[in-house]
């Protein structure tokens, strides 16, 4: 017999994303989300206690002193099922984490509940890119490439202009494009490689070195600048190092002030739950949204496949 709580527990299966603030370890985020979910589940189980009939002995008063036992039936609650005795109904729920974020960065962190953890595996076995926004500042170089590290060197940055920065970014993009081609396991002279390149599918399968598939500068006000990056197989430390290397290429120094993940696969900032919304009801809503989006995309691709017959190019 499925109580509302058990039904809710079974519905809690799927993927959703939260916004991890910076300065916090990702495990704390995961733990607090798990705690909140359990709290929410346990709060809904407001089943009335079952009653049972027990024969209770009356308390003997001093006036009447019969030696016989008088029992009377009364319905009493079953104490063994009392929540204070059994403890909360749900004590454990599986919450898994997708691509991790280190304590310095913030942004979209994908979590999975229950059987959604299997979907998590599948989702990340396919090639999925992530978008970041990197805030950088010229003028200092630190030992851990972020602005909280120990300053190693300070240098001038007055000579840096937008077009010099663009040149350096173009050079980095070229190097990353070459790495992308190198790590994709296709012979570059084959027709298969051409078709993959046309669809944009060239790239590494599985583990490889971090590759930036897209890089551009969205704001430049010296000494501060902001980059938008799309990458594969990266770590946030690597992105801080990229900011540091940009500074070196420009004959100056740079440190990273913030790393913010704006997209992880299909999950964007719009879908991310902030700290106040880490409750069970919001999580259930987010999971439902994810399911509906996925179904819509699935039916959309099905329709596309059946309706579309792409004409091949003619070779005379």
């Amino acid at each position: 017999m499925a109580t509302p709580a058990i039904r809710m527990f079974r519905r809690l299966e799927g993927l959703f994303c939260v916004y991890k603030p910076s300065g916090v370890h990702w495990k704390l985020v995961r733990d607090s989300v798990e705690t909140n979910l359990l709290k929410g589940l346990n709060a809904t189980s407001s089943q009335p206690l079952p009653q049972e009939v027990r024969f209770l002995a009356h308390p003997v008063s001093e006036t009447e002193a019969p030696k016989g036992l008088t029992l009377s039936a009364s319905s009493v609650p079953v104490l063994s099922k009392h929540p204070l005795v059994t403890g909360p109904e749900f004590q454990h729920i599986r919450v898994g984490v997708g691509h991790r974020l280190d304590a310095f960065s913030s942004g979209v962190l994908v979590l999975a509940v229950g059987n959604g953890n299997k979907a998590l595996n599948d989702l990340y076995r396919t090639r999925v890119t992530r978008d970041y926004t990197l805030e950088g500042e010229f003028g200092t170089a630190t030992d851990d490439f972020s602005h909280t590290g120990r300053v190693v060197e300070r240098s001038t940055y007055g000579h840096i202009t937008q077009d010099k920065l663009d040149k350096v970014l173009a050079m980095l993009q070229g190097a990353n494009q070459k790495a992308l081609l190198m790590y994709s396991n296709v012979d570059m002279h084959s027709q298969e490689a051409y078709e993959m390149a046309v669809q944009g599918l060239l790239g590494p399968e599985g583990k490889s070195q971090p590759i930036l598939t897209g890089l551009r500068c969205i704001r430049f006000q010296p000494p501060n600048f902001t980059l938008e990056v799309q990458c594969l197989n990266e770590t946030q430390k690597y992105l801080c190092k990229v900011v540091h290397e940009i500074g070196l290429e420009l004959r100056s120094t740079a440190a990273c002030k913030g790393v913010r993940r704006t997209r992880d696969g299909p999950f964007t900032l719009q879908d991310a739950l902030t700290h106040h919304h880490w409750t069970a009801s919001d999580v259930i809503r987010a999971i439902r949204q994810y399911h509906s989006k996925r179904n819509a995309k699935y039916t959309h691709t099905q329709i596309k496949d059946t309706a579309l017959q792409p004409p091949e190019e003619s070779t005379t």
Partner: protein
Amino acid sequence: MSKTERTENCRRRIHFSPSWVSKRMAFLRVRLCTRHITTGLQACGYATLSKASRPQDKSSTGPVFQYVGQHKKPNYKVFVWGFSFTGALGIPSFVVPDSGRKKPRKYQLTPYRLETAEQISSAACGYGFTLIASPTKDVIKLWGMGLNKDSQLGFQRTQHSRHQSYDYVLEPSPVALPLVEPLQTKVVQVACGRAHSLILTDQEGVFSMGNNAYGQCGRRIVEDEVYSGSHIIHKMEGFSSRVTQVACGQDHSLFLTETGKVFACGWGADGQTGLGHHRVSSSPVEVGGDLAGVEVQQISTYGDCSLAVSTDGQLYGWGNSEYLQLASVTEATQINSPRHLPLKGCGKVVQAACGGTQVAILNEKGEVFVWGYGILGKGPKLSESSIPEVIPSTLFGRSEFNPSVAVTKIRSRRALRLGEECARLFGHREERRPVLPVEGDCAWSSGGRSVWRRPHGGAGEVPAVSFCVPAAVDERLDVLAEPPADPRAPREADWWLRWSLEASCSPQAASTLRPVVTSSQVHSGWFCRKRSLKQLTLPCMWVIWERHQRMDFVFLQLELKRSID
């Protein structure tokens, strides 16, 4: 200093440099203490933002390094790559190696930096030679390197004698132009053909130098002219208005004036001059046909096919169409008068570029269309197309991250394609088939074509020579055979070149073999070139085989005789 070295040096400098290590160490000690305190406070927090431990920076005492000087000028770089035996890359050590052990470098496959004295704004590659020009107003504004046997780089005085000119120039050497006001005129554009070059200046018109055997330099054709060691740099006349663009085909030249008219001169056997006939033209004549009254904004040519783009986005073509470049209007293999090419689905054409066997156009939306024969850029399977095919823009960097990438320029000659966002260069390199020369011939390739040259040895007739070529499906054979320089031979003599083709292939395929030789539909013949003792060229002789046949060798028999017996 590389990046990692600099990072390491930064760290090392702090620890080991004696001059201010004491200051630094004291500073560090202070900072370490504060750090410990802050981490202690943080240990119990849950989500305290760690901005508290942000270091000093602005008020710190410490040196600020400056790595860039006050007056640093932007540096402009020139990169060269390709075939380097003739010295066309401008780096002498490729041709004459510094140490005796090394061999001359034949191909430079990756871009190699060429140091130039000035900023270079225009460069052009010909057959084994290169011209680079700078927009400066100094006296020296043009440099040339590579093959100079037809004085296509002007007169390059040798060290030992001022009457002799170098045949191969290994380094960018200044070319002296006969300008009226050398300190006022700037070189706007250079263009190079097979053995001639054109220089366009802003105030003094067009200068031409090099081989003029077909009038491609725009001056009167002189019989038996010796081009090697020639001082002639001809200032071209006969244009109705100022010339704004020049283009060199293999042996012809095209000029675009500022009123939008096109002039042409040179070899016209394929109609590439567009003057309505197949003769040579030794002075620039205005091109008519469908271009009469049309304002042209860009011209382009490479081999024997010429294209023009008008200001309203229409494309006109004339010349060679053996590779289906002009198949949208004609089934013939040559057109000698410009025809408008109706292209469906291409939009308004902004730029056109001719390759040797292909054509590419750019429309105003930044899409690139290609057609023709050879490596078209649409994968290894597509090697021939008579209708324009669009190249998917994902190959130029368009993706979800960058949806607005568009191509802004296309150029031919060495087929560079510049994309706007990423500035990646695609080089069209046709695979060089190995050539098996016979009897010590000197063979070199330029522009994707292979040229065999039989050195002259001894007087009298040259015995028949047979070249055995691995069946190169898309190679065009230009055969240059030099008659022997025999002092006893009469100056005017008829030299006959007999050529014949045979194919050797697997027996199963022999029945379905269909070789096609275009200039005459026969497999052998005599070709005569009178009076030109320098060269005997067999133009337009090439072989297309059925693509799916697997050929082993093509035997090309050549026999050079003074007269037919």
